[in-house]
């Protein structure tokens, strides 16, 4: 078995595609039930997203929407890789962005040059997000509180703090004519400029997308290429073995939670720095979206990127469905089914892969087995046994390595 064995990799590629097809079928069925034409729906979505009219703008928009999704999913994935469920991305992101937004617009920082203020905002957002995540980490480490529950509670509590602070009596302001409370608008020197992807589009891609990409690369490098990453993965794969290997579980939980919360703090920054230029009470909650996307992308930085784009495509392109009087909830249904189908498909693919590995192990060790078979003649003679000692014929012992043999495999018994 080679390092990149096609037999092992192929199921992993087929799995998400099969899941997508299934999701499309399910939503088609839903559409047919409500008397709509699925093809019309899908073509309207594609036309809106990539067609000549709206295409360039909407495609850019998909990228822009995918950017915070990507960050949210990365935040979740860091935890997932060590078996930690950070469901609190939402709260961490809101507190982080509020602190960053308020500070970025604060007058006492007015003298600081814009780019430096951006850096300060990024650092503050990460620090506050990490600090809020640390509450859950400490509760887990020292009080044994499951992070699943504590982060959910902390989302509500963080939200309360956010809502308390972002009012016109405190950190918030209201623009003339508007009703939305937000932090003061950032000065334009601390905006991150966007870039046009296609000629003549009004919509610009967030400059922060490059930060997100950098985060993805950093994630890949950290998890796959560093000692810390090894500890992280080892803990996720087998916590007790990781402990025996020298990983300190407490430190690991805290470090991972801090990292995850830090990235969570970044989630809303692309939009704030690139478009809104202020933090509002309606910062979208991306915690659950992040979980779903991390799962779809198998916690892999490239997979997450693809999943984020898919998710963003579905979210953005459903807009024209209303015009056609097609219920756009089918998109949510499709998202839910995709996640479920993808994880099931990966599970099945992993089973196929595992079986293939066992076969190849069996094939490699089976040959060795045959050589040693047979009773030494001396012993047989001494004991007078040979009645039931027929050695196993070689073809049979290797039979299961032939994939076509319909042996009763463990996987098929249930």
């Amino acid at each position, binding site marked *: 078995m080679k390092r990149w064995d096609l037999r092992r990799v192929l199921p992993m590629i087929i799995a998400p595609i099969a899941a997508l097809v299934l999701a499309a079928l399910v939503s088609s069925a839903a559409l047919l039930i409500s008397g709509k034409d699925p093809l019309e729906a899908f073509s309207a979505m594609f036309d809106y997203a990539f067609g000549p009219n709206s295409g360039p703008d909407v495609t850019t928009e998909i990228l822009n929407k995918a950017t915070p999704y990507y960050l949210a999913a990365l935040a979740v994935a860091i935890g997932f890789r060590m078996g930690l469920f950070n469901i609190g991305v939402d709260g961490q992101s809101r507190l982080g962005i509020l602190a960053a937004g308020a500070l970025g617009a604060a007058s006492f920082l007015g003298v600081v040059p814009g780019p430096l203020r951006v850096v300060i905002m990024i650092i503050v957002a990460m620090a506050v997000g990490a600090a809020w995540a640390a509450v859950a980490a400490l509760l887990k480490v020292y009080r044994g509180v499951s992070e699943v529950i504590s982060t959910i509670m902390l989302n509500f509590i963080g939200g309360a703090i956010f809502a308390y602070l972002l009012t016109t009596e405190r950190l918030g302001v209201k623009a003339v004519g508007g009703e939305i409370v937000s932090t003061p608008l950032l000065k334009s020197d601390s905006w991150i400029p966007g870039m046009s992807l296609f000629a003549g589009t009004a919509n610009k891609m967030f400059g922060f997308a490059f930060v997100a990409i950098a985060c993805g690369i950093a994630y890949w490098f950290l998890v796959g290429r560093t000692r810390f990453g090894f500890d992280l993965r080892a803990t996720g794969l087998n916590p007790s073995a990781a402990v025996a290997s020298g990983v300190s579980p407490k430190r690991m939980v805290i470090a991972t939670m801090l990292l995850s919360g830090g990235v969570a703090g970044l989630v809303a920054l692309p939009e704030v720095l690139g478009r809104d230029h202020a933090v509002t009470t309606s910062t979208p909650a991306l915690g659950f979206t992040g979980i779903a996307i991390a799962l779809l992308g198998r916690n892999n930085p490239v997979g997450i990127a693809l999943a984020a784009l898919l998710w963003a495509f579905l979210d953005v392109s459903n807009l024209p469905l209303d015009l056609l009087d097609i219920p756009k909830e089918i998109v949510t249904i499709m998202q839910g089914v995709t996640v479920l189908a993808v994880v099931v498909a990966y599970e099945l693919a992993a089973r196929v892969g595992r079986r293939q590995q066992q076969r190849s*192990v069996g094939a490699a060790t089976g040959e060795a087995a045959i050589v040693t078979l047979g009773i030494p003649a001396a012993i047989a003679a001494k004991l007078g046994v040979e009645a039931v000692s027929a050695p196993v014929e070689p073809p049979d012992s290797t039979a299961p390595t032939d994939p076509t043999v319909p042996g009763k495999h463990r996987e098929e*018994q249930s």
Partner: protein
Amino acid sequence: MPADAVPSSAGGPPAVELRGITKRFPGVVANHDVFLSVSGGTIHAIVGENGAGKSTLMKILYGMQRPDDGEIFIGGSPITIHSPQQAIRAGIGMVHQHFMLADNFTVLENVVLGAEDEAGIGAGARKKIQQLSSQYGLGVDPDELMEDLGVGDRQRVEILKVLYRGAKIVILDEPTAVLVPQEVDELFGNLRELTREGLTVIFISHKLDEVLSVADAITVIRRGTTVATVDPKSVTARDLATLMVGSELPSPEARESTVTDIPVLTINGLTVSTPAGRALVDDVSFTIHKGEVVGIAGVEGNGQAELVEAIMGTRAARGSVQLDGNAIGGWGTRQRREAGVGYIPEDRQRHGLLLDAPLWENRMLGHQTEPPNAKGPLLDIAGARRDTEQIVAQYDVRTPSIDVTAGALSGGNQQKLIVGREMSHIPKVLIAAHPTRGVDVGAQAAIWEHIREARRAGMGVLLISADLDELIGLSDSLKVIYRGRLVADADPDTVTPEELGLAMTGAAAGSSREESA
């Protein structure tokens, strides 16, 4: 108990007969054309190397695995068994190799589970359990919580579970692995009691002398096939071993002492307590010198695991631990390992491997901060891969490549990988807990040889094992642990397994057998 309903041994059809059983797993033929005939009212032993297919065969008989081929006869009539339920209905009961008990349930709940129809789950069941317990002298209290019981009691609960269901055929898969000789004797007493009542016992063990002493017939399985059925009176343990392995065993190597007087690991007053204050390891002190193997004998659950964990730094402890002159008591596990403590954990799958990761990543585990696995804070993947190839070759890990996952390897090969990994870092001290548990004879000899070799090179070894022969054969000095205390020292040159076993139960505390190390 249905003592009457059992076909008598002589003359009638065999109580259990298996014909031509074949069972394949992906990549493995676990059973191939197996024939087995067990007479009623006897104790029938099955022996074979690890992975020979014994457990699989019994699981087939008990309905937990379906054979690909072959027939089963109970009391002479053919029967299909597709689930444990059917097996139980056919009068078959099984005590599994690993305890099948729910810790958070009471004894009663564990026993009646699945057999609620017998006597309900309340007072009736309690009465029945008490009655069975006294009838067979098991001494089990139905209302105790499982987690409060020791291994011996657990074993008896397992047997009680089988009896409670009115089994006429009782399968015991390695029931003695975790028992001390005295407990084994008790168990055998129980088994004979059962056969006197007319029950049939099928019994799997790796301990050949035990088998010879208790069985009425012995079947040897090798590589999934029945090799022979022999009469215990006409064979020796050595004959059996030869049948199992299929070749002559290497004779035990003559011992030569390599012990120096340079201490490498010194433990002083080491104490591990539960949160409630009970001492699990109680004021333990000893020294390991360069080139010395110190063996710890003890019944499982007397603090060995905690002692190892305390030395490895994965469990809080009081007292001092000195490695090569450095007090390492306050160090974390990583620091200890980097300082030269090698570790072969007791449960390799739980503590030693990442089953879903490839071999080369498993090679890094535990040494992820050291060359060849790391350069500074980064991993050195190429280095680790190269070194893994070398370990695979040197330690005869049977695998098609280093990219398969560790979970795809057999237990013995997994163990060889772990041993190779630990040895290749040339530890100053090796903490080896049951280094050959679940490993077949060939691999066992190889692992011993590796340990001896490293010892010659000056490594100190702390050896913990349930295999008394291994302990005696490998150790330069032996200590007995009982309830967390070192209660006796023994000289491996003179002590016998029986004496050691006696000391392990605490009975010999203070007796004349101890000698100074």
